[in-house]
């Protein structure tokens, strides 16, 4: 009894000590940059102000967070470690985690489903009570969404292995189906006027990054070559579309493949010298190449007009029919009323098709000898060479094909924006795309798509969080914090799950049955 009590007291004392140390370190870390603020005053001189309360709030959070960790999470982790080892086949922690995550998601999704069921019933009632006036389309969308959410909730709530397998089997078709009907659902849900934001900012923006992520996934995820200058090829695609379309008036449909070819050419050109390098050196050299291309774009003013960028880039046409209010425009040709939303929807389906093309090509290539050689190269380069694989060709094809998709995405980007400048192609952009690939789990297509949705969708949603202004005051701008959170998430995911969200690998070639390979069995040779 007394021994137990004293050990409990000891635990508490230790926890308090740790918390005090953590608070002290946090104080030291935050004192200069949070405790003081440098402001330029009216006379253009730098003066200092203090931010005591903010500093102590952060220090308090760190201290109490540490106290909470050592009193509740740490004993729990220790108890779990003491538990007898699970025999193989039982749940190890990622699967266990996935089960609970699935359950949690299931609860949320079923609540959403309930809301939609209610809405559907309400709409049916409205339709029954006043036939004719009933919004039939509205009802249809509502039914579709209800079915989607009920199905998802059902799958998720089943939990366990079976549920997970069902989810992984259904994710692809369900996700693809949802992406295809997404603009229609949005238009029905919020009407023509308000849907531009949802389709453009969320749909197109996310899909561009999904496509770039999938393209980079070939280089980083499959071939294991860490490329920090991927955005350079995106820039090559964008500038080649912009310049050729403006100077020679070529159509989007000719320039799209041409941009891919040019970007791919640059990929191979830059790939050649770096063939001998591995791992971090390769990363740094590609970074340097990316920066050199950006600096050239900035300084070669005659060609690119430098920082000012290129504006008035021709927009893509619907197979020759432009999207404008003229008589030969899309709306008049098809007898519709003119709204700008048609172009947005068209662009959405265009990028969706391009993204699907990327995914399809990747999946097919993985089964071909070249794809298998990529993955073998990722696992062990020396073994690869001993087996007689031509590593030069393998690396160059990875670079070339990855760059080609970046070129496609780049020319789409230029066509969608109508304006490009070197600011869109900074190192931060490369890092964001890399973060998406890494966070999603290198090599996993679904993982990359999910990571793009979370990271890009998350940052877009931050623009919408007006209620935070009510809490933190009018000057609070949530978008400021997006890169901060981005960097933080990168570190956090690396520390917690270094293999990314989806870390298991499913082999392209298998004997008898396809089995997922757990992340603990996957180990790369040289990266």
């Amino acid at each position, binding site marked *: 009894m007394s021994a137990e009590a004293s050990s409990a007291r000891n635990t508490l004392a230790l926890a308090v000590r740790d918390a005090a140390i953590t608070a002290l370190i946090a104080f030291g870390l935050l004192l200069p940059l949070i405790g003081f603020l440098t*402001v330029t005053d009216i006379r253009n001189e730098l003066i200092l102000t203090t931010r005591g309360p903010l500093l102590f709030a952060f220090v308090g959070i760190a201290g109490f967070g540490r106290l909470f960790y050592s009193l509740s999470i740490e004993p729990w982790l220790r108890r779990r470690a003491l538990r007898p080892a699970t025999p193989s086949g039982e749940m190890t922690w990622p699967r266990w985690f996935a089960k609970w995550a699935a359950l949690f998601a299931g609860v949320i999704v079923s609540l959403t489903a309930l809301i939609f069921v209610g809405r559907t019933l309400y709409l049916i009632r409205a339709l029954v009570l006043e036939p004719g006036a009933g919004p039939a389309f509205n009802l249809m969308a509502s039914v579709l969404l209800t079915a989607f959410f009920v199905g998802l909730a059902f799958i998720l709530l089943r939990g366990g292995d079976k549920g997970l397998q069902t989810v992984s089997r259904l994710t692809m078709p369900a996700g693809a189906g949802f992406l295809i009907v997404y603009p229609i659902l949005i238009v029905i849900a919020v009407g023509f006027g308000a849907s531009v934001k949802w389709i453009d900012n969320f749909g197109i923006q996310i899909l561009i990054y999904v496509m770039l992520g999938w393209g980079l996934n070939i280089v980083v995820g499959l071939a294991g070559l860490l490329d920090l200058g991927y955005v350079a090829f995106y820039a090559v695609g964008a500038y080649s579309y912009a310049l050729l379309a403006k100077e020679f008036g070529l159509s989007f449909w000719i320039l799209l493949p041409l941009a891919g070819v040019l970007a791919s050419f640059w990929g191979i050109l830059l790939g050649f*010298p770096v063939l001998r390098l591995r*791992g971090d050196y390769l990363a740094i050299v590609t970074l*340097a190449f990316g*920066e*050199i291309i950006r600096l050239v774009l900035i300084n070669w003013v005659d060609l690119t007009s430098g920082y000012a960028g290129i504006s008035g880039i021709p927009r893509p046409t619907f197979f020759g029919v432009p999207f404008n209010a003229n008589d030969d425009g899309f709306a008049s040709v098809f007898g519709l009323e003119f709204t700008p939303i048609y172009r947005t929807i068209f662009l959405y389906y265009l990028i969706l098709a391009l993204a699907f093309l990327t995914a399809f090509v990747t999946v097919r290539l993985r089964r071909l000898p070249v794809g298998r050689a990529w993955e073998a190269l990722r696992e062990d380069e020396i073994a690869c060479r001993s087996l007689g694989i031509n590593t030069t060709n393998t690396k160059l094809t990875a670079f070339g094909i990855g760059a080609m998709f970046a070129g496609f995405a780049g020319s789409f980007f230029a066509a969608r924006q109508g304006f490009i400048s070197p600011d869109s192609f900074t190192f931060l952009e490369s890092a964001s795309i890399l973060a998406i690939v890494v966070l999603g789990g290198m090599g996993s297509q679904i993982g990359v798509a999910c990571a793009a949705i979370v990271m890009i969708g998350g940052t877009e949603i931050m623009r919408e969080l007006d209620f935070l202004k009510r809490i933190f005051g009018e000057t609070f701008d949530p978008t400021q914090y997006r890169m*901060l959170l981005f960097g933080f998430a*990168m570190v956090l995911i690396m520390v917690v799950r270094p293999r990314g969200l989806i870390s298991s690998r499913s082999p392209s070639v298998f004997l008898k049955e396809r089995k997922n390979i757990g992340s603990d069995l996957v180990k790369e040779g040289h990266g």
Partner: protein
Amino acid sequence: MEVFLQQLINGITLGSIYGLIAIGYTMVFGIIGMVNFAHGDVFMVSSFIALIVFLILTSWLGVTSVALALLIVLVVAMIFTSLVNWTIERLAYRPLRGSFRLAPLISAIGMSIFLSNFVQVSQGPRNKSTPPMIQGEFVLFTKNDYAVTLSFKQLIIWGVTAVLLVCFWYLVAKTKLGRAQRACEQDQKMAALVGVDVDRTISMTFVIAAALAAVAGTMYLMYYGVVSFADGFVPGVKAFTAAVLGGIGSLPGAVIGGIIIGLIETMWSSYFSIDYKDVAAFSVLVITLIFMPQGLFGRPDVEKV
């Protein structure tokens, strides 16, 4: 000739700053084999800390002697930056030891983004400029109305760099910590077996790297009189270039590489085009890594199964 001499002086000054940062890269790479991508941003954070300490000293405590103020700024910035880098190693890199090879690099890229955005959010996105701390210069000689000068600022940077390099060389070559460090560089497992605390040695490496970066940060602030949250990336990459050029893992190599990069940059700016000076530095990086990956003083890297 006059222009050349002047650029030589400027280049050595700039190169000293790069060299101090480069030592951080080269030490960390030597001991745990990772490119500490966030090191450039640690340098940037240190110059912000230096700025704040300088403002506290001059505008609140009323320190009038610039020399005294600079000395205090240097010491305080070194302490705080070391704490920052120590924490970064503990939180972002140590859990990843033994993970796959690219994990620490990616974590470091995340940390670099985090640091620069943290400074942007907490101190504002605008450039912070201070009035010149030290003025005055020696005119070495005048020819055709072109005065070749050596400013006091440059002299201080040369002096501080030289003194610190001597201290640092003593630390690595003569002390117990330095010996432990060299042992860990060669073989961590073996070092642990003979009683070297590997974790502590690695932590100390990060602390020393940060202290040198803080010196560079303070000198940078004093030399240019302006800092911004985005100032970490480009000097970071250039310092990394210096480390690679000198042979990564080699300490004198880092300093010499830094001076070479500084000279290339200033000479390029004055004889060719200032717009492309960063392109020149990046090209040196690419050319070195491709044709001479072991650098000037490095050991060749042997590939093993």
